[in-house]
């Protein structure tokens, strides 16, 4: 699957008014943050992309891949689906060992499983502080482990060039590592997020309002400077977070 471009054509907001842009494009290696208040339509936007909407959802948006209407087989044949969506409600139900599950998924994608299980686990463990091992049961994984394994699974086994993450930051994922890795892999990634650090780390910021995309912002030089400071502070907070978790007494 060679994805060169993802295009979103505008639709309407909750009032039925047209969104004030014609289209926007995202390229491999790009990251976009979707921000906005509760109920503003963030999830609906990523769902449109996941469904490859063709003016057949409430928002009436239209999604093109490489300037073309994606074939229906993308949705019908799992091994062709280029998009993966992970949300905070998404769970694993299978009562299987991690390695058995990953092998089963590889099989449904008609993929040789040799080497993919350790590779997926390695990536998952980069994303979470709590180690996931192959002999764990899927159902005992914590929220953070689950989300980390899902992302790793979708990138390695799902081989998905487009990854949509709907508010997963509170699951304890190491965000900077995730960002760096995504850029390196040449994926297109969209984050629905309330986290200013994630939002500022992205190349594009989509601001949602009343069900529509109200603004499309690109991180400019001034913001990049501000971002540096914010990241430093964020790192400080995460150090403190780790120390609190380890039971230390915090004092300045």
């Amino acid at each position, binding site marked *: 699957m060679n994805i060169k471009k993802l295009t979103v054509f505008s639709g309407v907001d909750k009032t039925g008014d047209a969104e004030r842009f014609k289209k926007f494009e995202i390229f491999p290696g790009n990251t976009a943050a979707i921000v906005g208040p509760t109920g503003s339509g963030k999830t609906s936007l990523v769902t449109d992309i996941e469904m490859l909407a063709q003016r057949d959802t409430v928002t009436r948006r239209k999604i093109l891949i490489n300037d073309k209407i994606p074939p229906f087989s993308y*949705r*019908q044949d799992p091994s062709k689906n280029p998009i993966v969506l992970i949300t905070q*409600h998404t769970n*694993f139900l299978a009562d299987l060992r991690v390695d058995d599950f990953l092998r089963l998924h590889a099989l*449904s994608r008609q993929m040789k499983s040799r080497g993919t299980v350790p590779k997926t686990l390695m990536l998952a463990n980069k994303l979470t502080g709590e180690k996931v091992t192959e002999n764990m049961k899927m159902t005992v994984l914590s929220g953070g482990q689950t989300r980390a394994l899902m992302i790793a699974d979708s990138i390695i086994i799902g081989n998905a060039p487009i990854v949509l993450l709907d508010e997963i930051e509170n699951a304890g994922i190491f965000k900077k590592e995730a960002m760096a890795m995504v850029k390196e892999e040449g994926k297109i990634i969209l984050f629905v997020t309330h986290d200013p650090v994630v939002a500022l780390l992205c190349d594009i910021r989509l601001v949602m309002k009343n069900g529509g995309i109200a603004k499309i912002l690109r991180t400019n030089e001034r913001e990049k400077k501000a971002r540096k400071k914010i990241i430093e502070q964020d790192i400080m907070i995460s150090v403190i977070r780790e120390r609190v978790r380890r039971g230390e007494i915090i004092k300045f």
Partner: protein
Amino acid sequence: MKLMILAGPPSAGKTSVVKNIMRRLYPKVKISFLKIDVVVTFEKEEIGKDFPGIPVKIVYSGDLCPDHAGVMVMKDGIEWAEKNKSELLIVESAGLCLRCSPYLNQGLGIVVLSMLGGMNSPLKMGPMVGLADIAVVTKIDLISQAEREVFRQKVHEVNNSIRLYEVNALQGTGIDRLLVELKDMKDIKPESLVLKGVPPLGVCTICIGKKDIGWQNHFGVIRKLDTQGADYLYRGE
């Protein structure tokens, strides 16, 4: 009149799917709704509250397999819906008995499956999946994409010609795509309606392979649309 028969295990999301369909058609399209269940149903309230004016009929099958009961009452049900001047009859079957299937040779046979039933659930449901035209998979909002992919593959293992739609029936995601099927549907010809498959147990004329619909055409434990409780007859006309 067009006909849509939905079957699926309890709480799969059948009524939620129906309500999403109605939300998009009501009140432009005249719809009648028939529910066949074993003992308790809430559809009369569920549908009546959101869509006043849609005729709703509930049939309790009691000791009888709900799909058997469906066969018996289907002919009367179609007449009832035609009398209501409906353009679409939606039938929801409880589908508790996993050996039978309620689908007919015309209209759409839809099996509603919940992702929460587990990845192997399609394999356990036999003809309910095997004979359906369409599978609507609900609750995709709750499950990893990996499991969704495996689930899709298992459905296709049971029925490789089935058309599969994934929906979130709470929010209505994916329903518009399903509605395209409705546009392409032909009107039913009630005279030539027969069952698609034969149930495997031989306790009545349905089980042993008589595919006609309507209680008039059957022997054994039969029932009419307007009888309730244990008011069974043993012989058709």
